[in-house]
């Protein structure tokens, strides 16, 4: 099979992996070589589904010994199978890179023969790109579930990021839909996370020690294929951030790729739910929220009508209003309508002046939402005070406004 045909099959087969980030690595261009890492990451294009394209995302092979019900590459699926050679992937990466189509390579794979055999191929691609092609661009490798510690350690020496997909949020779902065990996934993830920590430590003492996955690790959860609620998912993510030090958890609305009766029959992928989960994830990573503040046993699902911060603020209306001039940064971040950028700008600008309604608008605060939660110089921004929750709620609802094609791009960088 020629390389064009292979890319058609293996590129398309990788599209359900939503990770795309190319950030977190500041790799210098190798002497006499090509490519570097830019720590903020760079998006190169946006596909027709609105997702950013940063890396050449492809499978090494779509041959697979597993038969996971949700996966398009499952053994029992009748599709054409193929595999790249190591050199083919290297050439493709270099040629795409030199035309500035991509930031680098994201290489995943079906499991060919066994986990170690496959992992070895992926590690070899990274090694060859670095050593023979003198490539300094971004490389993200998938760790194959069940692969040995040594191979994962080797792979991480050449990759910027190495990650394992959890896919299903509970072991029960894993056992129902796959022939994998929890340990197949959690052991490599643990190995990656301890290698990253050890490496950071080692480099403190010895600057010349080789880097291990300098851009860290991430994972992906499929949403809507199994019965877990949002509370379980958000708690799992929080645990992954805290215990494994992951950089990102990606959420992937389940797109039915088979009519297996173990899977729900969905008319469309649950995109709104996925979107709300990303917002909740943002709250945990950038806004100082804990999973327990976002959801609890009594509210197991995120509100579809409004963003999770607005929902939290409504439940905790007794904490408001806060004063724009004096509230600490952490408190500003909790106001609906104020994002990270506007909170930072408020903190800078208020040193110079007393901020009023128009100033906040200029700074980029969404006043429709924020006005209910703020006072300016001790005075409320609203005529009359103590507005009923019903009216506040009306201003917080975003669903109607965004319409059915809602999908903000939260994958970027």
């Amino acid at each position: 099979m020629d390389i064009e045909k292979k890319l058609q099959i293996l590129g398309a087969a990788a599209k359900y992996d939503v990770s795309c980030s190319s950030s977190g690595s500041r790799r210098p261009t190798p002497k006499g070589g090509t490519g570097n890492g830019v720590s903020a990451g760079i998006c190169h294009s946006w596909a027709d589904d609105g997702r950013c394209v940063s890396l050449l995302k492809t499978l090494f092979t779509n041959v697979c010994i597993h038969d996971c019900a949700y996966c398009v590459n499952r053994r029992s699926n009748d599709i054409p199978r193929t595999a790249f050679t190591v050199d083919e992937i290297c050439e493709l990466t270099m040629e795409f890179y030199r035309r500035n189509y991509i930031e680098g390579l994201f290489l995943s794979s079906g499991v060919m023969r066994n986990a170690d055999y496959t992992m070895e191929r992926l590690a070899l691609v990274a090694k060859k790109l670095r050593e023979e092609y003198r490539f300094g661009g971004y490389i993200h490798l998938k760790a194959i579930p069940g692969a040995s510690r040594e191979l994962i350690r080797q792979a991480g020496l050449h990759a910027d990021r190495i990650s394992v997909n959890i896919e299903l949020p509970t072991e029960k779902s894993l056992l129902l839909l796959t022939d994998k065990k929890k340990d197949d996934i959690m052991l490599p993830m643990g190995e990656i996370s301890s290698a990253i920590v050890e490496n950071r430590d080692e480099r403190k003492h010895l600057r010349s020690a080789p880097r291990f996955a300098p851009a860290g690790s991430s994972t992906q959860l499929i949403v809507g294929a199994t019965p877990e609620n949002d509370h379980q998912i958000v708690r799992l993510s929080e645990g992954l951030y805290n215990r494994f030090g992951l950089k990102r958890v990606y959420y992937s609305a389940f797109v039915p790729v088979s009519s297996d009766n173990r899977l729900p029959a969905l008319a469309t992928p649950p995109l709104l739910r996925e979107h709300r989960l990303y917002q909740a994830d943002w709250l945990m990573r950038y806004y100082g929220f804990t999973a327990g503040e976002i959801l609890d046993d009594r509210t197991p699902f995120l509100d579809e009508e409004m963003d999770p911060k607005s929902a939290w603020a409504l439940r905790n209306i007794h904490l408001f209003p806060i004063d724009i001039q004096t509230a600490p940064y952490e408190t500003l971040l909790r106001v609906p309508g104020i994002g990270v950028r506007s909170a930072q700008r408020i903190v800078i600008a208020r040193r110079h002046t007393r901020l009023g309604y128009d100033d906040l608008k200029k700074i980029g605060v969404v006043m429709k939402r924020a006005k209910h939660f703020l006072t300016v110089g001790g005075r409320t921004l609203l005529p009359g005070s103590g507005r009923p929750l019903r009216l506040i709620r009306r201003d917080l609802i975003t669903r109607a406004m965004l319409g059915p094609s809602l999908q903000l791009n939260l994958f970027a960088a």
Partner: protein
Amino acid sequence: MSAQYAYDGSFPGLLCALCAALTARERPLDIVADRELQPMLLAPTIPITTDEEKADRFMGRIDDTMGRHVRRNLVRTFLSDTPGRELLIYDYLSFIREKGPNADGHLTHPAVAPVHAVARKVTVEAHRLTGMARFTRVAGELLVAVMEPRHRVLPLIAPHFTRRFPVDRWVMLDVGRGTGLYWDMKELHEVESGPETTRLLNTPPDSATGDIYEKMWRQYFKDIAIPERKNPRCQKRFMPTRYWKYLTEKR
């Protein structure tokens, strides 16, 4: 009586004009490039002679007394083609000179906010184009990237590409302005869109030899979208259609 200053349109020229205007301690009526100059009935026009050394010294004073963030905003505002940008810069510098280097944080002040807004637009476009510039292979192993940016971002993005592709020969062209930068694997050279570059441009990317990687990229770009999630609105928000003309995958 307040005057208008006329400079040659170059960056050092603008610095000399700013220096003169700030020294005069009277807000100029306008600072304009010669090519945009319209004589005013009642105001004198002061022609500015560009003096590179003087410009360097002035820039150094800005770095020392106002900070590098001010230089950055100044440069980026200049690179935007926003009408009236010279006077925006004058007001900004004169405000910071009066209030001190931290005054840059007075984000809502009319002397600061417009400069920040314009500089940010330039920064955003420059960042976008580090991702969306597309190189095409032409004869002689040369890589050519053609673009038509709103702002003059070439000088901002070229250093990124010299770091990234040091061992390739490439040229980036701003065809809207007829300017370009050429990297010969040692340094950058300014080029104009003369007959030679026009010839390069007219070499169709899918000429007789054809570039198999361009073809594969286009196919790949189609294949990676999930049809059930089609979202053209989102795609256009991040990748405005005005850039599509030069995108290999959208052309």
